[in-house]
């Protein structure tokens, strides 16, 4: 097949070529790499349309101070020829480096925020400013905001081009409030924390209620506010069965009526009995300074856990209590 085609292709050339057929027989050879028609290759390279060489990537033509938001105006996948950063990603082979960005699937898989650079966000804000009202001048720091508006409501609206404007994700409502701004006494606070469970964060003292069980945002907001009201009122009430609270239910260690108190009392009584000092009573024993120190050290040990300072404090207090040097 190749042999038949070869002269036919040459014949297609303008006549001037045929005169120099022999001398220019080399030229098609240079155009196509190694035209020696090997017997295994039947498809001719000369049939395929000639490919253009790949152009240099756009990154080489980018100026340093270009307008980046126009390169990535919307969320788009990572295009290595468009992003001028020498990013590498991937697990390296032995004595190798992570893979480069060209043809890197890992960079395509992850979400990128190249459309949300600070410059782009500034532009978005500028565009949105005309739809916003002024921030009230009196609320210039966080404490004032906390004081006057302790409850924070978070909702999200979604805009997309599609057959319907509705988005089911828009019904979620998150209500955040700090417990210090609620009027709760000790028992009420402990009960509320037990009632809400995971929704309370100890380090920031914030109760977060996230509702999405109703179909509309307005309904979810009402439900969240209702939950907060109910929690507040219920935590102030004391039920009868709350009297059965055991030591295992306690949130923090309470020394009174604990086994530690009993132990130390017994020990002290025995010491006094050994010294033939029988006219002591419990309150006196428990009221001494050493026992007070001991109580503090045990409480801190139980509540904070073991660390050097609590353990050494405990050791000192026991030594003083038992009169060891």
């Amino acid at each position: 097949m190749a042999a038949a085609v070869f002269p036919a292709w040459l014949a297609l050339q303008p006549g001037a070529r045929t005169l120099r057929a022999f001398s220019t027989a080399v030229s098609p050879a240079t155009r196509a790499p190694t035209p020696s028609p090997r017997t295994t290759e039947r498809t001719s390279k000369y049939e395929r349309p000639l490919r253009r060489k790949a152009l240099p990537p756009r990154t080489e033509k980018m100026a340093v101070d270009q307008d980046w938001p126009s390169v990535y105006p919307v969320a788009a996948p990572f295009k290595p020829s468009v992003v001028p950063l020498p990013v590498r990603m991937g697990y390296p082979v032995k004595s190798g480096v992570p893979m480069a960005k060209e043809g890197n699937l890992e960079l395509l898989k992850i979400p990128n925020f190249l459309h949300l650079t600070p410059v782009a966000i500034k532009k978005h804000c500028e565009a949105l400013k005309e739809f916003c009202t002024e921030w009230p001048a009196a609320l210039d720091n966080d404490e004032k905001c906390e004081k006057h508006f302790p409850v924070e409501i978070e909702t999200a609206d979604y805009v997309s081009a599609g057959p319907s404007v509705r988005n089911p994700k828009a019904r979620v409502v998150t209500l955040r409030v700090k417990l210090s701004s609620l009027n709760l006494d000790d028992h009420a606070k402990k009960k509320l924390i037990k009632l809400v469970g995971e929704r309370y964060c100890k380090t920031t003292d914030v109760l977060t209620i996230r509702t999405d069980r109703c179909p509309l945002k307005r309904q979810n907001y009402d439900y969240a506010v209702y939950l907060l009201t109910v929690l507040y009122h219920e935590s102030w009430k004391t039920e009868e069965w709350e009297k059965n609270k055991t030591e295992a239910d306690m949130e923090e260690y309470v020394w009174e009526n604990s086994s530690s108190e009993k132990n130390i009392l017994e020990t002290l009584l025995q010491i006094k009995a050994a010294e033939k000092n029988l006219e002591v009573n419990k309150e006196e024993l428990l009221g001494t300074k050493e026992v007070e120190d001991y109580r503090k050290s045990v409480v801190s040990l139980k509540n904070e856990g073991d660390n050097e300072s609590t353990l050494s404090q405990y050791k000192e207090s026991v030594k003083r209590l038992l009169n060891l040097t």
Partner: protein
Amino acid sequence: MRERSGTPNLHELDAGHFLHTGSQAPQNLAAHLDNQVPVESPRAVSRTSESDPAKHGEQHEGQHYNIPLQDLKAVFPHGLPPRFVMQVKTFNEACLMVRKPALELLHYLKNTNFAHPAVRYVLYGEKGTGKTLSLCHIIHFCAKQDWLILHIPDAHLWVKNCRNLLQSTYNKQRLDQPLEASIWLKNFKTANERFLSQIKVQEKYVWNKRESTEKGSPLGEVVEQGITRVRNATDAVGIVLKELKRQSSSGIFHLLVAVDGVNALWGRTTLKREDKSPIAPEELALIYNLRKMVKNDWHGGAIVLTLSQTGSVFKPRKAFLPQELLGKEGFDTLDPFIPILVSNYNPKEFESCIQYYLENNWLQHEKAHTEDGKKELLFLSNTNPGQLERLCAYL
């Protein structure tokens, strides 16, 4: 038989030793076994000749003292850690380092008021820092002072891998461990021979239809009964503990209760009954009686305990603090106690340990005695005694 002196044998003239005993080189050639060779500085650092623990003080800190081998068999039939036993066999001598936690405890013990309830001391620390060996130091001291030593070498052995659990004859709810009890009784007998004839039991104990121990007979009989009749071994242990507790207040003897791995008493066990239901520690008679022993409702002695994660069941490897290992129950039972931290070597102790190994020709690597070598060992072991010992075993 290798000499114990710091001067090397004529047979072992390797260059390393000449280097570190350089100043003494001319004397080495006239190698005599006279141990009045002036103490060279490495030896002064690593050893002391004071072998009575009662006289150990701060000036001996960091130095090794020698325990004669026949004392070792009498005082520690079962107490030493296995690697230390191997080291004793290799070096043919038993040397313990005097360290701060042990010195502190010795100070407290010397000033114990035997009329007050027994004080509990708890040694805690990370893995391999020397808690068990500190306990052994204390036991040696008390043995020298003629106290009665009640030493449970590893309480973890009583809560795991026990075969042949029998239902207790004394109390149907509890379970017996005949093997562990009989092994412990044998060792107890070896350690406290002289007391067993002096102490008399104060009640009559009936073992079965044919055998009983009368009131007033020596405690040794109870121990013998436990060793010969393995079925009653656990009950024998219980009786021994009860009698000792009762009689320690009388003043005939001082009692030292030393338990290694006391956190085993309040944790979980790996033992199961035939119907695969798990056994709680208090259902084992040995553990139940031992718990009674570590309470401080008796006087006339002291209680020294060690917390140990090695060998413990169901505890994470990095746990070493008292509350982590004892749990709530254990802490509440032991409260109030004196916690004593056992930490890694300080530079002086580390230097002393390396010198000790070098003197016994344990470190054969040619760079072991150089400064660089020591720094490398310090870094690799992080001054942890157990880790250092394991590293040096390869050198």
